[in-house]
């Protein structure tokens, strides 16, 4: 056994993040570490990488007990981590990023030539070629990740931890990455893959370690298991097949007419005419970056549209203020929950009243009623089952899924007739995803309209009554629940030319 972690305990307050967790890893093995958010998988990996000191427990490498107190020690023991959010300098070149901290030295100074050659050799050795002189600015995410991987390999690592590496990648890049992992394992590197995506586990991993509520609940060979079994282990219950009840479709609640944003002669949004009726979930399918963010910003007046109209409940709100749009009955769960959806350093209460603090019941004569706001926050937490201990705790103390639940709770609770949700389940675990989907369907069943923007095609197909496909700012097609097929939508999403 190459790596062994035994009886790891880590307690935060009264909560066990890790309770008697053990882990083994063989040479050349790919181990998938799966579990819901808050299951303790990040914690155990932080213990291994020296970012978190466990309360008790031991780590053995080659049957020798080791003491890993900081990432430097971890690297010294051959453990490297490919971070989900890359630790790279965009202003630097590929080579500079890779050798950073371990620069080869000439007689006196940094030996640039050798460094470049090192990077080229490294790329050749692992079949991950990269131009050492290329700057990182504007580089696609997949290539940046490659830089991050080479950076880790440059440190002579034998154990590579991938922290949710596919969350930020396009489907093609995902395929590429999984291939890379396999070939790394084939030459003897051991890999630990933290992920939510069970199909990736099935495809690439040899073994899966399942965690739930800080404990190890399963350690199974992938060839002996199934997605169903893994998901059962993860959430501790079977995920029911969702049946979407039929609802009567009502009046149009949201409409854009020929909405366009043209910037420097390029149409970021091109003549978009869509509508959502009451009792409908309308999906917008598309690969990220095809105008979805701009559509949301144009609706909310955050980006001025160059032509066209936005109509909410019959009221034209084109290019007005976000207050006005919200007050006319639009709620928004933004795509990036940490940047646009919440403030990490603010309390749960402060986060919960955003967008609505100016309304009756929350403030009067310019003074905010914090008591009522606290009560309101407690309600949200209870209704949406947000794992938290106090309304006064900071947002950054919640896990990703719980942050998203609170944001959704905030936006749904105000009972606006129309809700826009963008990537509502990105990076959240299965349990939270199921919950969020249920709430969206409930909202629709209540007779409200929902616009669902998502790059997860399965999510779109599962939930939407109607589907628009967006590509390069244009609506490329419209489907109903009945006539939508994955193949056709996928085809249009990629520009309708070819599926690369």
């Amino acid at each position: 056994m190459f790596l062994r972690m035994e009886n790891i305990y880590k307690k935060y307050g009264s909560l066990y993040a890790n309770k008697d967790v053990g882990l083994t890893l063989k040479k050349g093995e790919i181990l998938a570490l799966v579990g819901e958010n808050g299951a303790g998988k990040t914690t155990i990996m932080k213990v291994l990488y020296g970012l978190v000191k466990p309360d008790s427990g031991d780590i053995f490498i080659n049957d020798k007990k080791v003491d890993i107190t900081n990432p430097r020690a971890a690297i010294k023991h051959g453990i490297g981590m490919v971070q989900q959010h890359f630790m790279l300098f965009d202003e630097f070149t590929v080579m500079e990023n890779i050798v950073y901290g371990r620069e080869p030295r000439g007689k006196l100074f940094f030996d640039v030539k050798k460094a470049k050659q090192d990077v080229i050799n490294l790329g050749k050795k692992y079949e991950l070629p990269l131009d050492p002189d290329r700057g990182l600015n504007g580089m696609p995410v997949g290539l940046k990740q490659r830089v991050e991987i080479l950076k880790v390999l440059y440190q002579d690592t034998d154990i590579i931890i991938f922290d949710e590496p596919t969350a930020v990648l396009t489907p093609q890049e995902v395929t590429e990455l999984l291939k890379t992992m396999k070939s790394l394992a084939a030459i003897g590197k051991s890999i630990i893959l933290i992920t939510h995506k069970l199909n990736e586990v099935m495809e690439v991993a040899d073994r899966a370690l399942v965690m739930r509520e800080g404990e190890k609940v399963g350690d199974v060979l992938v060839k002996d298991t199934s997605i169903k079994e893994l998901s059962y282990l993860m959430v501790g219950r079977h995920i029911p097949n969702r049946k979407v009840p039929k609802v009567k479709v009502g009046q149009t609640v949201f409409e854009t007419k020929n909405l366009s944003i043209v910037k420097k002669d390029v149409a970021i949004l091109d003549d978009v005419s869509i509508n959502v009726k009451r009792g409908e979930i309308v999906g917008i399918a598309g690969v990220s970056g095809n105008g979805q963010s701009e559509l949301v910003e144009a609706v909310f007046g955050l980006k001025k549209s160059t032509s066209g109209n936005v109509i909410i409940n019959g009221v034209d709100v084109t290019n007005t203020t976000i207050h006005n749009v919200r007050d006319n009955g639009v709620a928004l769960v933004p795509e990036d929950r940490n940047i646009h959806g919440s403030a990490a350093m603010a309390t749960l209460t402060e986060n919960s009243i955003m967008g609505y603090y100016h309304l009756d019941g929350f403030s009067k004569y310019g003074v905010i009623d914090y008591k009522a706001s606290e009560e309101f926050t407690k309600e949200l937490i209870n209704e949406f089952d947000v794992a938290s201990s106090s309304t006064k705790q900071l947002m950054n103390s919640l896990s990703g899924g719980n942050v998203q639940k609170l944001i959704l709770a905030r936006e749904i609770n105000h009972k606006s007739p129309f809700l826009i949700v963008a990537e509502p389940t990105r990076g959240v675990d299965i349990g939270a995803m199921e919950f969020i989907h249920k709430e969206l369907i409930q909202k629709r069943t209540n007779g409200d309209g929902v616009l669902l923007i998502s790059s997860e095609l399965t999510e779109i197909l599962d939930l939407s009554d109607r589907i628009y496909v967006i590509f390069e700012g244009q609506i490329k097609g419209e489907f109903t629940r009945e006539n939508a097929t994955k193949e056709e939508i996928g085809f249009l999403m990629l520009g309708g030319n070819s599926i690369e």
Partner: protein
Amino acid sequence: MNKYYKKTLNLLEPLKQPAMAIGFAFIVGAIVMLFTGANPIEVYGIMFKGAFSSQFYLSATFAKATPIILTGLGASVAWRANCFAIGGEGQMIFGALTAALIAIYLPGPLWIRIIISMIGGVAVGGGMSLFSAYLFDKLQMSLSISTLMMNYSSKFLAMGLVVMFFLDTTSTGGMLKQTKQIPEGMRFPRVNADYALTIGFFIAVIIVLLVWFLLNKTKYGYESKMTGYNPEFSRFGGINAKRIMYLSLFISGVLSAFAGVSEVYGTYFRYVSGSLVSGGTAWIGLNAALISAYNPIGVLISSIILASIQTGGTAISRFTDVPLEISQILQGCITLFISAKIIIKWRRKKKLIKVVEEGGN
């Protein structure tokens, strides 16, 4: 019991940070003193006595703290909203000059002159701050640079104005660059005729409470705080960031200018060129704001402590061989430890944001 204990702890929270920065500074100060051969405990004892021991010293300390409190509040309001303006000094100068000139030259009953002079003074300070906001908004000119530059130009412009048009030639024959005195009936009454303390200090305390209310209870306070935490989230939540910036900078300018006004009304009774600059009042105020993490109650307390280092420092030079500069060393160290704190906080914040983004536990 436990609940009350917790409540007390919450109330003491704003004190934690100033106490730490100041505590560290005193340790460093003690080391320096040991090098000079003095006994730090003795020196600190004298310093403490020189700042707090008698009504006389205490009132001197409070009087000195008054403008520090006000400029500290001014800095807090702006910095909390992510507006890193450092124009307190210039705003103080023109607040003081405007108030003094109106008080001296405006005809009419005294109480009307008081009101107009005060409003005029703070309006000019607020206006200067708004001008910087405008430069930032329209021309993307850095707030810190434009406000800093205005400090310098204010200093010399005010001096020029005084020398050219408003010089008091009667008292010192024009030797000092100062205006005439404001009428006696307009000055802040002293608490005790023998001491320096005027009602200006108590006005400052009331303003502390008002600013506390403004920042912690009002819609504006919420909006500025959230903008400081995450401007993008605030934008999505419907907060008008520009409005918050203009408003915060205006309030900040008004508060700093009032520091100048209170100096005219309570200390100098006239505008004396250079008097508001030499003590570095506005900068000490900024220090007070930083150590207390923009908490108004914390600003009040740390301002008093910073003022006491100054008044106590004078006592040291009177009674020991330790030079007066020791108080400057202490202040320097406090600044240093505040900056260290800011960097640590910034790094921790970055780390926390990262943890959240990873969706980890």
